[in-house]
């Protein structure tokens, strides 16, 4: 039996927990109450869904959710398809220049695309992809994080398995597909989850590269909606905010253990 923590520690941990959850609870409170009741804390104030209805009508949230989903799909498919072979080559093949190239790949962990937004905007414009969904995904079609994570996983595949497949005459591509990828499934799940959550939340680059309702992802739609000159009251903005975080938040609350485990798996280096 492990000892229970003392009262001061428990109290501290709970205070911290409250501070971290309070903004969300406050947002939920405000979103479910009308006008003045949103800022008074009377527990008997009537609940309402009016704010959600109003937010859904006023902001093109459905469009935003659709755009975000498309961008995520493009980035996910592209990263899986491109990072997998690269990670395999870095993990298990020897070719001249490999280590130097890998070091260059890791530079992206330090210099993320948003730091280079001015030049990346030029490149995107040169491809004619400004204000397009592909343009939002463009800097994220490849990923040093993905290559690194998959390389780590592939390196843990026993060499004997690889040798056995090689002796059966399988070339590198079929070994990768038949031996490595199936064994790396948990890593793909974790990587996919981190990617989905990153792009669901990504803001700065989509803000720069989009300029119409048709292409704005959810975060930018929400930001446009929440600017003060829209003249909306806070409960409605808060309701819109909750609507946009809801899909990921609900998924997280249901699968919180798996969510955290997968984030941890992606985090263990």
């Amino acid at each position, binding site marked *: 039996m492990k000892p229970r923590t003392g009262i001061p520690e428990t109290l501290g941990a709970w205070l911290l927990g409250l501070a971290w959850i309070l903004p969300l609870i406050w947002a939920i409170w405000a979103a479910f109450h009308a006008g003045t009741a949103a800022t008074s804390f009377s527990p008997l104030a009537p609940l309402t869904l009016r704010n959600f209805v109003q937010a859904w009508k006023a902001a093109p949230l459905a469009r935003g959710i659709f755009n975000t989903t498309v961008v995520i799909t493009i980035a996910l498919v592209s990263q899986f398809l491109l990072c997998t072979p690269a990670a395999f080559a870095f993990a298990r093949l020897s070719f001249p220049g490999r280590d130097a190239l890998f070091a260059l790949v890791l530079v992206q962990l330090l210099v993320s695309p948003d730091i280079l937004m001015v030049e990346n905007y030029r490149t995107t414009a040169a491809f004619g992809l400004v204000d397009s969904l592909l343009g939002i995904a*463009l800097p994220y079609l490849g*990923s040093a994080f993905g290559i690194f994570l998959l390389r780590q996983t592939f390196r843990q595949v026993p060499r004997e398995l690889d040798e056995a497949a090689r002796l059966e005459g399988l070339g590198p591509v079929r070994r990768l597909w038949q031996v490595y990828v199936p064994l790396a499934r948990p890593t793909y799940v974790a990587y996919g989850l981190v990617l989905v959550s990153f792009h669901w939340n990504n803001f700065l680059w989509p803000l720069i590269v989009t300029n119409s309702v048709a292409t704005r992802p959810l975060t930018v739609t929400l930001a446009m909606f929440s600017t003060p000159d829209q003249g909306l009251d806070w409960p409605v903005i808060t309701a819109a905010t909750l609507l946009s975080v809801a899909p990921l938040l609900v998924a997280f609350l249901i699968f919180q253990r798996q969510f955290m485990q997968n984030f941890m798996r992606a985090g263990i280096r």
Partner: protein
Amino acid sequence: MTRSERREAVAGWLLVLPAAALLAAFTHYPTVATLWRSLHGQALHGKPPSFVALANYRAMVKDPVFWQALRNNAVYSAAVIPLSMALSIVMALAVDAATGARIRGRTFLRVAYFTPTILPMIAIANIWLYFFTPGYGLIDRLLAPFGFGNWNWLGAASTALPAMIVVAVWREAAFYMIFYLAALQTIPPTLREAATLEGASRFTFFRRVIWPLLTPTTLFVFVNVVIDSFRLIDQIVVMTHGGPDNGTTILLYYIYEVGFQYWDSGYAAALTAVLLAGLAVVALAQFLLLGRRVHYG
């Protein structure tokens, strides 16, 4: 090189090439292009930008907003880095099952600590905007009984940057807690039992056993929080637009402003070059001081 070695080398290059080309197009090429562009003026009336040598950098040295952005960034980083790291360790220790003692409501606390990680920064910003609203925002309401209570948190020079720091720490601590939690779970529980038998206090156990074992994680988190402290501007874009009087303008925000509101790409490139130099220093320090210990390999 034998024939099979040659084939492997070719296969290796072919497999790496597509991903490497894309990374090069959006990381390495723009890095080099930024440096080149910083030596050029603005493109006007369809004419190509002229070569101006170091004029952008000379203008930068005389630009008070640039210096203010640097100062703000220094304050922002100096606060965000240690606060985020300390809180993420404390949170991870509080909810870790393997090494610590049991705490009441552990599952709730884990969810509470972790939640900001899956919220978009822009949603976080919206919620905190409401929090900071003068008069009826929650913070003013909590402070009202103490005689405060109508303070324009985001509009006053003295509190706007601290408010941005609070929001950043709220997000960062939640995000990096997960790395510490992952690391704590690899620590064998037998160590805890041994320490208990030896009669070591929990603090001693932390200082002598857990903290040293966490070193690789701490170094990894440190490097990433440093990078984030140059990068995290979503909440500034939404909440303050860099104001009041550039009071919350940090370097990347200034780059965004110069690049996409004044459309001065030459000057934005020069500012980016400064940021890249800062990141290069971080990378170099990591390499020299920490060597291969946090190395991604």
